[in-house]
């Protein structure tokens, strides 16, 4: 099956395997291993990517379904060797411990901050409702999300 999609700002037309998940395609076929597999059933959010502006679990997307869509993975965030302000905020706030949940957390943060300039704490917590972290206890992640929002506002001033 031939499909066309945009991945991290690059438009691709490819002959694909039909019966695999987007997650497998990203990791195994394209070598984009920043997207992690945790539970494989949509519970943990480690595999979160953004499709057409919305955070989704790439383990629950069948590959042909991305035909015509725009996809952003964690690899698409840094530009010209510079980290994205969200990535910087996670580092600055020490929101990364083992790091396995981090790409998913960052993609959920991006999906939120792309549509909300001033997110409330409630909106911040709701945005990562579907992302599990077993190290940090979430407080540093939430703080990093607040800082990221602030940094993005400053950058756009």
């Amino acid at each position, binding site marked *: *099956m031939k499909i066309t999609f945009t991945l991290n700002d690059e438009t691709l037309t490819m002959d694909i395997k*039909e*019966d*695999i*998940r987007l997650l497998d395609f990203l990791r195994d076929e394209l070598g984009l291993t920043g997207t992690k597999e945790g539970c*494989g*059933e*949509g*519970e943990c*959010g480690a595999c*979160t990517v953004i499709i057409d502006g*919305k*955070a*989704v*679990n790439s*383990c*629950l*997307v*069948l590959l*042909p*379904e991305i*035909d*015509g869509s725009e996809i952003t993975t964690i690899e698409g965030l840094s530009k010209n060797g510079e980290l994205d302000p969200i990535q910087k905020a996670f580092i600055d706030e020490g929101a990364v411990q083992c790091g396995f949940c981090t790409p998913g957390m960052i993609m*959920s943060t991006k*999906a939120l901050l792309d549509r909300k300039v001033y997110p409330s704490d409630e909106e911040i917590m*709701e*945005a990562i*409702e*579907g*992302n599990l972290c077993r190290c940090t206890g979430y407080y540093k992640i939430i703080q990093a999300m607040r800082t990221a929002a602030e940094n993005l506002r400053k950058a756009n001033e």
Partner: protein
Amino acid sequence: MSFRVFMPTSEEELQRLLSERSCILAGGTDLLVKMRLKRVHPDRVISLRHLEGFDTIEDLGDSLRVGCKVTMSELLNSDAIIKHSKILEMALREIGSPQIRNRATLVGNVVNASPAGDSIVPMLLSNASLSIGSAAGERVERIDDFIKGPGLTSLANGEFVKSITFEKTGDFFPQFHKVGQRNAMAIAVASVGSLISESEIRMAFGSVAPVVVVPVEACKYYSRSGESFDEDRFVELAMKSVTPIDDVRASSWYRTTVIKNLILRTLKVWRKRGYDAD
């Protein structure tokens, strides 16, 4: 996994593809999990992704119609839902996570027919009916007839659910209480949804019987009793429709206790509406 994927663009094309060994993929949040666990093994997966239409929320006057492609996030962003079906909004907020709600559809959750299906509760309370299409034409079935058992529906080979239509319930006082193991992502241990007015109560329970159930006798008692309404009597009648099981999430005993408390909480919140309930 080994199967072919089809992406029909028209209803006719979709109907031609439906067969005994096919599965329809709407949001995929249930189907992909089931396929991975090898609980279903279709030869063909029919994706609704390129199907034209079926993606709107229509205002039909007294009711709303939601197409089979409409996601839970789209419903939560709809002014019509917020205004006319607060109870659906409340239930959808309890489902999964943003990632799940961005893909999962309302129709998909109903067709899945889980006893814990959070959106089935408001659909029962709103007298929903499903529009079911096939090569033979279209039929309409009430949701309580459509759901036959845990994971079982009346959907026959070659049929698919086109849309769900349900009453506007803006005149009622809505409540949705759910107890799970944690707030986000939790499948209900027990849930109680209700729509209450001075003269009528509608109530439905999730996760405490093989299907989402309505305590019919208790609801009739509420309308009949008027001034002489007795809370204990109501609970006693309501509990007749509760037949919980022990499973991985909770014991039968715990579910029985929880549901009783949720019914009492529902009545208390209604009594103290306008004031702080607790």
